[in-house]
């Protein structure tokens, strides 16, 4: 991630907002000066070493720092981890996502883990055990005191607890009042989160910054070459591969916990679990205790969280394009697919493979898997239009594209040939398919022309005469129609990569989504005329003003005004091309063009500044109402603001809270945009 000044400032403010002033001062200095030792920090910030040690320890505990011990000097160098600091903004989203896909108990644990930063599993178990004991004790005390909840001295308490305890006064411990009712449940949820890669094991290179790690690995590998030098093209390519592999090994170490759990039989249990309950929503009753090592230190894996958040964004995108039913199908497909995706974007160094064959194949999902994962309550027949069978080209709809779309290169004859060959293969395969999939033959046919409704389906299946089976086949057909619809889209939601096999090429798809987001950003600032001009420039490349005029059919005055306005906000750029050897401003051409990368940078910059501004305004508001806010924090007022505060204060407080929500919501919204443009 490129750390620009606004991004650095925003991260500092975010650290300040959540962890307080001391760490944020240190963090700001680290961002501004780069890696520093404690002495250097002391010189920069004017804090004493004791404060610095406390602040650094705090930052490190929350995974906001890297540190490195140089072999040549005895000093530890600290460096800011900007990704994690930025990701603090997304805490709310991550928690909501975890709650939706893994249940409220998982969210509770996740929140604790984010709150503590890195933590030992054993400590977590102890803490929860203590809470459970405590609740039991409280409950017992209440039980013995007065089962009907109108006790004398703990009046307030009873009014709050009684809703839970009253209905079942006889079985105090059976009904889980707490989200986590036993440590076995806690462990099993941790296992599930580890299995989903949302939690990572902390290992010895976790706190090495990527640059340091790269340098270490590179120097180690260079030493193995004769003379400590890499010579020749072949050796260089080999060297690159070796570096990438070593880095991958380091990265995979954080998955060690998952591997260990898998050895202990996690996958078998998981299969059982999925078979039993199709959705992963229910809380398993503590049967998945796989002997997780209590000494293991775990922390949140933001990369995987981003993958899951991206899935949700893509689902929303598909809902915008096709409608909700199709988006549900797409959502469950992505969920299945992302089990094997660890991060949104590949690292150019780490995920470098010299030969394409070595590159791991993209994850693939089959139709049957999706059908199993789909909720049975989802009505697949809705959300699809009906077209006459004759209007659909079966071959085009069912076309299988094995190769991922390539980036355009200048000379790519080889790829051309490959592409041809593969399309031939596709044809062959299509011929073969009915033979291979004998069972599914009717379905495949229906998948093609079944868009015209259930009449044909029934006609074909009528011969089969399986009452129970018909519905299922029908559902499968409908599912296939949704999938085909997705794969036909120009945005490239889905690729039909084999017989009943589907995959997603995230790179072009995210490019499409990014373009949509940029377009809407431009439209919001420059209006419809602006976006029209941008689209023209995108399609045509660089254009002179006269040429734009003839294409855009706009008055010159309007157009120049609009272009100048957009140039000011960085959406279009100009290039001056002199007519003669001697450049003269009045005689040269001015070509307008649209550069998506520059626009993206500009939009990101504005986004960071908006977020900074929101936090600054929030700070200002806090200062304005600081007397009330400090009053609310008092222990005798907290929780009973209604009774203890005067009406005018109450009004002021609620106004402040409303404004605070507005500002933070603004940040969350802008972060959605940043995520699409930068991270997904």
């Amino acid at each position, binding site marked *: 991630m490129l750390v620009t000044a606004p991004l650095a400032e925003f991260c500092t403010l975010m650290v300040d907002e959540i962890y*307080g002033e001391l760490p944020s001062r240190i963090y700001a200095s680290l961002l501004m000066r780069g890696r520093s030792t404690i002495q250097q920090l002391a010189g920069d910030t004017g804090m004493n070493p004791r404060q610095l040690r*406390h602040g650094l320890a705090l930052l490190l505990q929350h995974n906001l720092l890297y540190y490195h011990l140089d072999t040549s000097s005895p000093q530890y160098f600290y460096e800011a981890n900007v990704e994690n600091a930025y990701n603090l903004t997304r805490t709310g989203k991550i928690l909501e996502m975890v709650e939706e896909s893994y249940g409220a108990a998982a969210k509770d644990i996740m929140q604790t883990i984010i709150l503590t930063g890195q933590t030992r599993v054993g400590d977590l178990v102890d803490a929860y055990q203590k809470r459970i004991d405590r609740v039991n004790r409280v409950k017992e005390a209440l039980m013995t005191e007065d089962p009907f909840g109108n006790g004398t001295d703990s009046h307030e308490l009873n009014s709050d607890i009684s809703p839970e305890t009253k209905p079942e006064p006889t079985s105090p411990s059976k009904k889980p009042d707490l989200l986590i009712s036993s440590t076995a449940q806690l462990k099993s949820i941790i296992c599930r989160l580890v299995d989903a890669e949302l939690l990572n094991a902390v290992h010895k290179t976790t706190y090495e910054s990527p640059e340091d790690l790269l340098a270490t690995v590179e120097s180690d590998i260079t030493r193995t070459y004769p003379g400590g030098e890499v010579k020749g093209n072949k050796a260089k390519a080999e060297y690159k591969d070796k570096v990438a592999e070593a880095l991958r090994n380091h990265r995979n170490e954080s998955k060690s916990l998952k591997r260990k759990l898998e050895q202990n039989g996690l996958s078998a249990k998981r299969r059982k679990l999925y078979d039993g309950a199709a959705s992963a929503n229910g809380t398993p009753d503590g049967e998945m205790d796989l002997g997780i090592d209590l000494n293991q230190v775990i922390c949140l894996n933001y990369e995987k969280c981003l993958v899951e958040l991206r899935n949700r964004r893509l689902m929303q995108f598909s809902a915008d394009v096709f409608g909700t039913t199709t988006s549900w199908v797409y959502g469950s497909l992505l969920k299945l697919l992302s089990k094997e995706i660890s991060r949104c974007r590949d690292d150019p160094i780490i995920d470098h493979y010299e030969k394409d064959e070595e590159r791991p194949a993209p994850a693939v999902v089959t139709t049957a898997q999706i059908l199993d994962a789909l909720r049975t309550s989802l009505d697949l027949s809705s959300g699809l239009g009906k077209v006459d069978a004759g209007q659909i080209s079966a071959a085009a709809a069912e076309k299988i594209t094995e190769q991922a779309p390539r980036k355009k290169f200048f000379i790519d004859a080889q790829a051309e040939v490959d592409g041809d060959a593969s399309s031939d293969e596709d044809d062959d395969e299509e011929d073969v398919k009915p033979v291979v999939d004998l069972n599914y033959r009717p379905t495949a046919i229906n998948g093609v022309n079944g868009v015209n409704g259930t009449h044909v389906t029934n006609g074909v299946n009528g011969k089969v005469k399986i009452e129970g089976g018909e519905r299922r086949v029908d559902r499968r057909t409908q599912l296939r129609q949704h999938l085909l619809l997705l794969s036909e889209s120009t945005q490239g939601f889905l690729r039909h990569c084999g017989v009943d096999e589907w995959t997603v090429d995230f790179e072009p798809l995210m490019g499409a989504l990014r373009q949509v987001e940029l377009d809407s950003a431009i439209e919001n600032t420059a209006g419809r005329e602006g976006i029209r001009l941008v689209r023209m420039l995108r399609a045509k490349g660089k254009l002179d003003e006269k040429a734009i005029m003839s294409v855009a059919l706009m008055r010159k005055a309007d157009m120049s005004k609009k272009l100048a306005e957009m140039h000011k906000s960085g959406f279009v750029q100009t290039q001056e091309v002199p007519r003669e050897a001697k450049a003269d401003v009045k005689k040269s051409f001015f070509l307008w063009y649209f550069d998506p990368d520059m626009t993206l940078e500009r939009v990101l910059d504005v986004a960071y500044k908006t977020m900074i501004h929101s936090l600054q305004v929030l700070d200002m508001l806090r200062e304005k109402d600081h007397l009330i806010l400090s009053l609310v924090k008092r222990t005798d007022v907290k*929780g009973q603001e209604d009774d203890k505060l005067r009406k005018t204060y109450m009004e002021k407080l609620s106004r402040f809270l409303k404004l605070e929500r507005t500002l933070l919501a603004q940040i969350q919204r802008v972060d959605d945009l940043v995520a699409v443009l930068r991270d997904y």
Partner: protein
Amino acid sequence: MFRGGRGGRGRGRGGPMMNNRREINQASVPWATDPKDPILLDGKPSDTYPAWDVPKPPTLIKKEEKQLDYFLIFREQAHDSPLYTEPPPRTEGSRRRAYGQDQINSRYADESKATIDPFTAVETYSKRFERKKRTLPDFSNLPFAKEFFPPELHLTLDGLDEPGADRKRRRTGPKTLALSNITTYGAEDLEEDGGQVNGQPDFNKALELFDNVEKLDGEDAFLSGEEDDWGNEDEDNEDAADAEAADQYDDESEDDYNAEQYFDNDEDDYGDDGGEDGGDGTF
């Protein structure tokens, strides 16, 4: 705000006035102008308070509300943790634009006895309800995976990184990770969903209230007033609390008539003990 039209600059060179708007002169601009379709400039002075169309964001959908709630509660829990360091109140100086690191540093250094607000600094009864401000994170009660920290920070994580560490009592009991019981944020939440969070009865809130009640109940509340929700889950730790109370009384008996210490909150490491600390570092 700049108001005042174009000054003398464009006046002589501009074209004829049309409806209070002036055509721009070809000679004054670098690009070619079309005589049939002139660019007109507005000669009017701008309004003092022009109408400003403030874009309003669409209202939050339910999912976003939830995300925001979770973020706020997370923040509240983080602020409640013993590691949170509350910023000192802002002053005029802290708002001013700073040039250079020295000025930035000087923003923070101004909490000392000289800058105390005389209207609020006097000890009153209600002070005991106030949350004690922390200027340094308190690591002493929490467990850490020390193997992942550089050795120079280990002492800090043990809570022993203090000038008088040897003199102070050392915690001997096992350290436990404490869970925060805060589940609400803001007064509005209380009104809205009563005892229910996300549609299910929430025991945590009861716990939170219980904590408050416990704190206010009896003598204990006074002594453990400075403990917060975090460390307090542990009831077996009463010896520690006693020791602390004893400490408190000791301090009081020693400095009963020390006027200097009267305003002192026991913990002002922030501003002015840089001097005594400087030589004390372990590196």
